[in-house]
């Protein structure tokens, strides 16, 4: 659905050059909810804005629905943009127009007949559960309601893709969850491809089936959300998953392992098996279960006093039983 090839973006201000994106390659399939996560300044905002050319890429190609947007002239670009919906962190609604008029706005741009506008807008109002607020002005809405209007407006032209630029960053956790559920719902119902950029791992965990971690304008890691969560490779990914920060320093002695149990491995009593088989004592430092799109991943941090050879054997044993192991301290 979206194909990004060798995309680079360099900002030039006077003599200063700031490289925001370096040679990015991404493929987003139809029906994906694709998350792009990064710290501020990682280039994620530039990346999503290059997709509909709100920012002009310095080089590279962006294909949406097989159309290369980079080669389009103004008029064709405007036409292509109508099939790429976008929602924003600050909602960006028109203050001078009611909720109804805001949602009707993209339809009015293409001179849709009033009757069809009315039908479509009412339908969208129902979809985002705001039928009772149709004739209210945005200033009277809560943040979550404003974003619902933003979503309805973005869907008015029946887009193929929905771009979400930090769409939940201005909302509280509960409202964030509601908005994410709405996005998921839309994704299911309309088979709409959604691209989400965020700095919150919770957002990715909640809805994204794939994720790319962006750092310093590069993609540090990319893959299915479950894989990334159960075995993060990159330090920045670990930072987001927040697994190496929880342990007090005084606990990190001996050998410390980090284990991730996915569905295949959670049914066996592996810890008690290794204590018996290897005749060692295991100290559990922390444990939790995370749900990634309703799929459970068990996380366990354990500590033990063994030598390197035994450690290798233990790791092998775990991996044979489909537990992903990461050595925190050896």
């Amino acid at each position, binding site marked *: 659905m979206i194909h990004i090839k060798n995309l680079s973006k360099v900002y030039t201000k006077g003599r200063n050059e700031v490289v925001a994106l370096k040679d990015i390659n991404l493929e987003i399939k139809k029906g994906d909810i694709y998350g792009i996560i990064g710290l501020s300044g990682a280039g994620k905002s530039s990346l999503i804005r290059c997709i*509909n050319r*709100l920012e002009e890429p310095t080089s590279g190609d962006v294909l949406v629905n097989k159309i290369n947007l980079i080669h389009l002239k103004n008029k064709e*670009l*405007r*036409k*292509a*943009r*109508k099939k*790429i*919906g*976008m929602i*924003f962190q*600050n909602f*960006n*609604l*028109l*203050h*001078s*127009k009611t909720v109804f008029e805001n949602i009707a*706005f*993209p339809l*009015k*741009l*293409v001179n849709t007949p009033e009757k069809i506008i009315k039908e479509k807008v009412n339908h969208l109002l129902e979809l985002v559960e705001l039928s009772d607020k149709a004739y209210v*002005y*945005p*200033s009277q809405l809560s943040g979550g309601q404003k974003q619902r209007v933003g979503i309805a*407006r973005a869907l008015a*032209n029946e887009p193929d893709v929905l*771009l979400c630029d930090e769409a939940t960053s201005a909302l509280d956790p509960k409202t964030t969850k509601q908005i994410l559920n709405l996005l998921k719902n839309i994704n299911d119902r309309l088979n709409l491809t959604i691209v989400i950029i965020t700095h919150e791992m919770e957002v990715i965990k909640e809805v994204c089936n794939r994720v790319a971690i962006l750092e310093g304008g590069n993609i540090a890691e990319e893959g299915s959300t479950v894989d990334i969560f159960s075995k993060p490779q990159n330090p920045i990914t670990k930072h987001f998953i927040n697994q190496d920060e929880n342990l007090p320093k005084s606990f990190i002695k001996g050998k410390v392992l980090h284990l991730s149990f996915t569905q295949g491995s959670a049914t066996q009593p592996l810890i008690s098996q290794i204590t018996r088989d290897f005749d060692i004592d295991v100290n559990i430092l922390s444990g939790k279960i995370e749900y990634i799109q309703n799929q459970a991943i068990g996380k366990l941090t354990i500590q033990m006093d063994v030598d390197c050879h035994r450690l290798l054997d233990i790791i092998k044993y775990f991996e044979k039983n489909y537990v992903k192991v990461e050595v925190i301290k050896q």
Partner: protein
Amino acid sequence: MNEWIELLTPSLLETLYMVFVSVFFTILLGLPLGIILVITREDHILPNSWLNQILSYMINITRSIPFIILMIFIMPFTRLIVGTTIGTKAVIVPLILATTPFFARVVESSIKEIDWGVVEAAISMGATPIQIILKVLLPESMSSLVLGITITIINVLGYSAMAGAIGGGGLGYLAISYGYHRYQTNVMIATVILLIVLVQIIQSTGNKIAQIINKK
């Protein structure tokens, strides 16, 4: 009382006429000018720094000239357009010339207040520049524009009174000819009171309209 009304009414009507016609043309010319000043900025929808700079300089130059000097300075131009350099009609030309750049700046600052994100949202929906101007920039800044128009009207009222000094009509002329040249202070005071009342009415009406339009 009757003689007061007889004395003041024609001048008041002249003033209202001058102000109305001048403001009408000021909006007609200043509004597009102000819009162009915003949208041709480097970071806006139709960047054209060359046009932007030229317009900006022209506006600054016109605004630097004191109104009373401008009136004398452009007399040949005024004669060319309305055929005379004295009276109500003749004042309208310099009034428009002096207030249009002022109003253009007012429009510019009103439109600049609009959050760029809203414009960006319209761009992301495939809006053309004309659609952005008509459906985003103008409606979103309407409340602020109404206040700007109010200020402009009061400005024009002040300038029109000044025009009395060089033979323009209206309340300013009445105040100068009776109050200054003929030492009838009471006429001067009456015109000043009338002007105060006018300004109050204009300002409070403007405030009211702006308040009704404002949905923020």
